[in-house]
């Protein structure tokens, strides 16, 4: 399955219908009540497996809940002012917008040029299966290539009995990744068991448990330890092994699932399994990758011809005159526009300006990385972010050096996983705030890697 990276921040959602199929283009029995019934069943397919509830808004509710609640359903045709025009009968059938704060978030549109039906033959289009698919988008799911999956992009025809319809496993896993599992099903009372049904007092539900994530990509994303982090075109890229995650300017991840570096960054060796450092040069927007003792210059996402070239061209040598074997961190500090490279506890400053050839570090470098007080001297990587602040990343923590500062003694680290990569909050001991003081009063020590 594939997730859009967007989800609702609550589980009690509301919906409304704003227009119905044109009677002349749908089967004669397709009345508004029947449409609402079919849509209700389509929502139920999702709420059966995840702790979601869907309430249809009545006319009175609509004023209180905004114009139509979270998911607004309509039947429209051709151009309808959302950038996704319909194309007459066949072709595109419907679409829905992913969750979010945008005013179109959750909107679900069906092409009114289709012959909508319920359980009809191949001459018409089944509303139920299309609605289940579109509501999947409205809840945050993207298209899936799995078979079976209701989130496959192509029309799949009708199902036998919509009241007993169960989502395929792929879709259940996807929705549960976003909203967790449904703990229990409602109790079913046998029919005709008495005049007034006496409702037994139900035991209190157990406290909610966080979703168990067992897949490898979740672990990779949430355990930190990124090889490189870079601010490129205002988006933050987290590189780890052969993969990367990408956080857009809006703060959303393009996907919770990682992308393969080699599928996006064209020109690195196909066996690339680790990036040491990356940064975007602000003067001309080129992107520089460091891997071992070599570097690549990219124009957009394609490497320029003639690369890799040796790191030695950067003219860096250690304080004791040794050779620099690799770059551990690289960034352009927004407050002065200079480029900083870190390696083995030392750092160099460059004034790259517009020249690419013959770059040399400024005089007096390298300097000791410990000059950046309060942050790790061997960061995984560094970026400039926010108001020109320097963000140091190490393991699963990050430290913020406020604008232009070098010597903030008390920089409290925060969680990369929680703040950047949409992972659940798990209390972890930090060097400054141990979460679990030793119970017997003995000294304990925490190092940065923990």
């Amino acid at each position, binding site marked *: 399955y594939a997730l859009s990276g967007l989800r609702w921040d609550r589980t009690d959602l509301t919906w409304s219908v704003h227009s119905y199929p044109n009677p002349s283009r749908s089967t004669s029995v397709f009345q508004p009540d029947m449409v609402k019934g079919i849509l209700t069943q389509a929502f139920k397919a999702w709420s059966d497996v995840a702790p979601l509830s869907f309430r249809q808004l009545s006319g009175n509710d609509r004023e209180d809940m905004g114009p139509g609640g979270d998911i607004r359903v309509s039947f429209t045709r051709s151009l309808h002012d959302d950038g996704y025009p319909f194309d007459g009968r066949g072709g595109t059938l419907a679409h*829905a917008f992913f969750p979010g704060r945008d005013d179109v978030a959750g909107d679900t549109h069906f092409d009114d040029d289709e012959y909508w039906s319920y359980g009809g033959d191949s001459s018409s289009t089944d509303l139920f299966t299309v609605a289940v698919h579109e509501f999947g988008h409205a809840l945050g799911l*993207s298209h899936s290539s799995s078979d079976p999956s209701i989130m496959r992009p192509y029309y799949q025809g009708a199902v036998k009995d919509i009241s007993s319809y169960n989502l395929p496993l792929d879709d259940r896993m996807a929705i549960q990744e976003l909203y967790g599992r449904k703990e229990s099903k409602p109790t079913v009372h046998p029919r005709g068991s008495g005049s007034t049904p006496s409702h037994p007092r139900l035991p209190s539900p157990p406290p909610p448990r966080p979703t168990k994530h067992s897949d490898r990509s979740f672990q990779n994303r949430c355990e930190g330890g990124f090889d490189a982090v870079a601010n490129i075109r205002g988006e933050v890229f987290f590189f780890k092994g052969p993969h990367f995650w990408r956080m857009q300017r809006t703060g959303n991840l393009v996907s919770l699932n990682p992308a393969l570096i080699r599928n996006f960054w064209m020109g690195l060796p196909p066996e690339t399994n680790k990036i040491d450092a990356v940064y975007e040069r602000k003067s001309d927007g080129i992107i520089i990758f460091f891997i071992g003792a070599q570097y690549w210059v990219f124009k957009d996402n394609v490497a320029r011809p003639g690369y890799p070239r040796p790191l030695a061209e950067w003219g860096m040598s250690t304080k004791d005159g040794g050779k620099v074997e690799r770059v551990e961190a690289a960034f352009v500090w927004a407050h002065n526009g200079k480029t900083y490279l870190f390696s083995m506890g030392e750092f160099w400053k460059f004034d790259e300006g517009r020249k690419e050839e013959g770059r040399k570090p400024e005089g007096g470098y390298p300097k000791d990385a410990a000059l950046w007080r309060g942050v790790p001297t061997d960061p995984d990587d560094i970026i400039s972010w926010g108001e020109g602040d320097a963000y140091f990343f190490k393991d699963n923590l990050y430290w913020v050096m406020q604008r232009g500062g070098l010597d903030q003694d008390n920089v409290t680290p925060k969680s990369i996983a929680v703040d950047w990569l949409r992972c659940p909050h798990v209390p972890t001991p930090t060097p400054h705030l141990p979460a679990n003081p030793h119970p017997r009063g003995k000294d304990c020590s925490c190092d940065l890697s923990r």
Partner: protein
Amino acid sequence: SPAPMPDQYARGLDWLSRYGYLPPPDPRTSKLQTKDGVERAIREMQRFGGLEETGRLDKDTLNLMQTPRCSLPDIVGSEDMLKRKRRRKR
């Protein structure tokens, strides 16, 4: 008079870019899709659709492209989302 119908290849490329397999054409630049890029995109579409990966617009591929479907792209990128926002603003 109506514009001539684009050929099958052009329609195939249009389909591939509409559903996220090829970057959308940018009228401000004169970028051309490379042959390799188009072949890769077709293969990706075939893989996603459960077809044999031939890299060509063969009969099965064209049939699948004509199957009714959801309008959202299969490969959703940030460009697509930004474009959508810009369109709405306009």
